[in-house]
Each structure stands twice: as C-alpha cells, then as structure tokens.
C-alpha cells in the first residue's frame, strides 16, 4: 500500500509534530521505502498464532498499598520550562 501526503500530515498531527508540506513530501518518500520493508510481513500466514506482547510468560507482580514517596516537587520543578506557585504553566487549556 502507498501512503499519501495526507496520511503523513494526519499522523504528524496525532503525534503533535509540526510538519510543512515540503517536509511531509520528504518524510513520505522515506516512509514509503520503510513500509515497503514492513509489507514483507504480509507474506506469512499467521492464522492461529497468539500475539506475543512480552518476552517472558510471567504475570504482573503487585505492589502493597503503602505510601513510599515524599514530596519532591521543588526538585522536579527545578528542570521545568515554566512554573508558578507550584504549578506547571502551559498555554491556556480550552475544553
């Protein structure tokens, strides 16, 4: 299958990456080649095969319900782009 420039722009929007029309064209060429490689997967019959999500066939380990963390917001926010009154600031959120 062949991707279109619109596919690239749609996906870039979903991924929140700004892309120009020219940028989308060049990305499209790369992605077309890469999907040429990926399409090799379609040649194999996988019916009846269970998808493999993890390397080990083990179950989740659970944590006891205890509070183990202390307040470190000053340290965490020392590397934040913009903070005020303990809050992370972002351009106004509109719902």
């Amino acid at each position, binding site marked *: 299958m062949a*991707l279109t420039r619109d*596919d*690239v722009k749609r*996906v*870039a*929007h*979903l*991924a*929140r*990456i*700004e*892309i120009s029309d020219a940028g989308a064209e060049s*990305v499209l060429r*790369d*992605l077309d*080649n*890469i999907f*040429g*490689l*990926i*399409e*090799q*997967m*379609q040649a*194999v019959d*996988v019916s009846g*095969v*269970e*998808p*493999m*999500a*993890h*390397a*080990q066939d*083990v179950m*989740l*380990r659970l*944590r006891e319900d205890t509070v183990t963390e202390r307040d*470190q917001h000053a*340290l*965490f926010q*020392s*590397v*934040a*782009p*913009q903070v005020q009154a303990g809050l*992370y600031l*972002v*351009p*106004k*959120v*509109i719902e």
Partner: protein
Amino acid sequence: MHNATIKSLSAELAAGRLSSVEVTRHFLRRINTLSKIYNCFITVDEEKSLAAAGAADALRAAGRAQPLTGIPIAQKDIFCAKGWLTTCGSRMLSNFVSPYDAHVVERLDAAGAVNIGKTNMDEFAMGSSNETSYYGPVRNPWNIETVPGGSSGGSAAAVAARLAPGAIGTDTGGSIRQPAALTGISGLKPTYGVVSRYGMIAFASSLDQGGPMARSAEDLALLLNVLAGFDARDSTSLDRPAEDYTRDLARPIAGLRIGLPKEFFAAGAAPEVEKAVGEAIGHLRKLGCETVEVSLPNMALSVPVYYVLAPAEASSNLARFDGVRYGYRAPEYGDLLEMYKKTRAEGFGAEVKRRILIGTYVLSHGYYDAYYIRAQKLRRLIAQDFSEAFGKCDLIMGPTSPSSAFKLGEKAGDPVQMYLSDIYTIAVNLAGLPGMSIPCGFDSRGLPVGLQVIGNYFGEARMLNAAHQYQLVTDWHDRAPPGIEIQ
C-alpha cells in the same frame, strides 16, 4: 594503565599499587585529550568523578571494597544519574538534569564504581551508526572516517579508545552488540528482565535491555554481576536468585554444541565478515565444540516486525516529551497545540520523528490489526524458531553485523539500508534472549569484525564461558586502535 582490563585494574587497586583517584585522573586526562576526536562523551564532570573515586578509595580503606570499587565506568547518556545532565542524545533533553538515579546507576554506585562520564548515543537510542545524536556523530577509533555503530556508539568508542575500561549501554535491536562489533570490543545484552529498566529512558519497552560493554568476556561478567538483579520498580524485572556470572568462566568448553543458523550465512554478510566468523568457529571446534546446523526460518522477518513494534512503543513512550514538565520547550508559540507541535518538531531529530510517525501510523485506527497484531504474531514465530533451535544446541553463533564499520554518512540518507544493518541482532531482542558480540578478527581495511553469541534464556554464564575460553586462545580483544596513545 589504560590498556589494563577491569579485572587487572581491580587487582592493582586491591593490591594497593594504584588508587582510584589515580586511575580516574588518568582516564579523565585521556578523555580530555581524545574525546574531542571521537566525540564519545556528552558530559564529563571531573569534580563528581574524582569525588566518587575518593569515596571508593575510602571504601577500600574501610575494607569494604568489591571487584568494581574504584573502577571508572562510562554510562550511556540514556541512564538517569542524579545531578548529571541526562540527554539521551537529544535536544529534547539537552537541559535535563536528572533528579534521580536509574537502578543500574544505583547498583554501580553501591559497588563503588566511578561514573567517568555520560557517553554519546543515537538520539533516544534510535540508530545504528551514532549519527542521529544531537551532539554530533561519534567516530570509530579504528578509523575516524567510519561510524562506531549505534546506538551505544559513544560507550563502544570510549572502551575501544581506552577512555574507560568498561561502560554500560542499552540494546533494543542490537545497540550494544553492533557497536561492540564495529569497535572491536565485547558487549552483552542480557535476557530481557535480568537488568532493571528503571531509570533507563525508554525507547521500546518490551525490547530494551541494559548491559555491559568492556574489552573482555571476563570483564563483562564482573560488570553483569553488578548490573543484574531484581528491581521492584520495574514490573518486567524478573525476581530470581542472584547469579555469579564469573562462575563458569574457567570451565572447559569441549562438547559444547554450537548452532549455526543457515539463514545467518545466507543473508549476504560481507565475505570478510563471513571469513572471520568462520575462523572463529574453527577455533571453537579446536577447543572441542561441536557445530550443528540449525534454522531460524522467520529471521528475515525480524527487521520488518521490529520496525512495527519498536516504533509503535516508541511513539507512545516519547509522548511525555511535550515541553510541559521538563526538557526543551519551543521558544515561540501561540496556543497549546502549537506549543506541542513546535516543541516536538524542534526537540526531536529526523530519525526519531520518522519512527514516531511510523509508530503512530501502525497503531492508528484501521491499521492496528494489519501491522501491530500481525507483528506480535510474527514475533511469537520468531521466538519459537529459537526455541526449536535450542533443542539442538547450547549456543547459537554467527556474525553480529553484516559488515564492518561503514563510512560516516554512507547510510545516513537511506533508512532502510541503515535498518538492515541490524539484521542479525534484532531477532534476539524480539525473542528476549541474551546475546553478545566479541571481537573475532579484522577485515582488509583493518576494521574489527564481531562474532555474535546467542544463548538460551538465562544462558549468560554459558555464553561468557565460551567467550572467555575463546579469548584465552585469541588476542583480537586485546588489539588497540592506532593513535590512542597520548603524551
């Protein structure tokens, strides 16, 4: 001193003939001079390293030294180290000073190892040549016109150039083994779940695994003894008894069955690579190993499968880099959407963006089953191939990389060619098996060639055993690149 292995440095320190401060100063001086050439470090902090060395000497004086106490170890810049700039090779984290330590960093600290600096890497570990780093490409000490491989290229070059006796790297599709092969050092990717991923900046969570890089198998074992271990903060960390990975090093390997996958030798590796690997197998036969042909029929599909699964996971793992809580934020934007888009467009490099787009696409509505689920099914077939092969052999061997180090820029414009350079290593990650690369010769250009050794789950000690026995009768791992001696 810099030609010494971890093992011998450790002995010198233990005998009191050297102090950690002396050793650390020596390597720092070398880094100051040579790292300009190879560009293998992103951050060096003499003060911190020397303080750690002083602490290590004090620990030794107090009689509490362990094998790695006082040994300088370089850390790939993907590991969060408290108080250290931790960039992951990206502009996105070019201002990120980590507020906490990764599990392996804690363990190295607890063992008294000295963090000698944070090494350069492909951005977010996405690359096979170390050319995608925001901090510029790393050069291969064997020939500075060639790449060191990636993504742990900085760690590999640092060890090869004797700027550190050992280093830690990460391997998602070959990122420890392939650069180890291209720089003539030894590197090991453990069984998935043996080394905690806590504090290791995630690329593809179901494939990522940290591991040691050093000059010899024996040194890898010493490092792995410290790196491996259960960590409750990583849900995929395996809770199993601690192992001493040095325990089998001295064991004779006569009777060891080596599986040679026919697909490895039909995949079009460079003739000089095949030749060096063939000679290595010959050596092992002389040591009494048996060889048996095995088959990994789905191996060719590992690259397409990987380039669905890894980008899918990465597209989600890298969503947290949004300019809100840490890291880069675009200087100019209007609304929130624009802040996100510009931050991510400017903060990520081309390869990372390419993979995020692939991953977003394969997970998006209507494509999930055709790509993601199908890839997971093929992943199972690939893992089953290994499981069948290990019914007939103890270790699997073959080339690590289809070629020796290629020229800087040679594959940079062709992602597919770049991706195919991991053809031999990727399947191991998909199966979650341990894999390593050890030096096994040179090509006619004088560039190192790596032998890949693949073990069954938790077969690290056996792999290290075979590698060590090989290194006892060969000296490829002792060869040093030209031009690394300084005044």
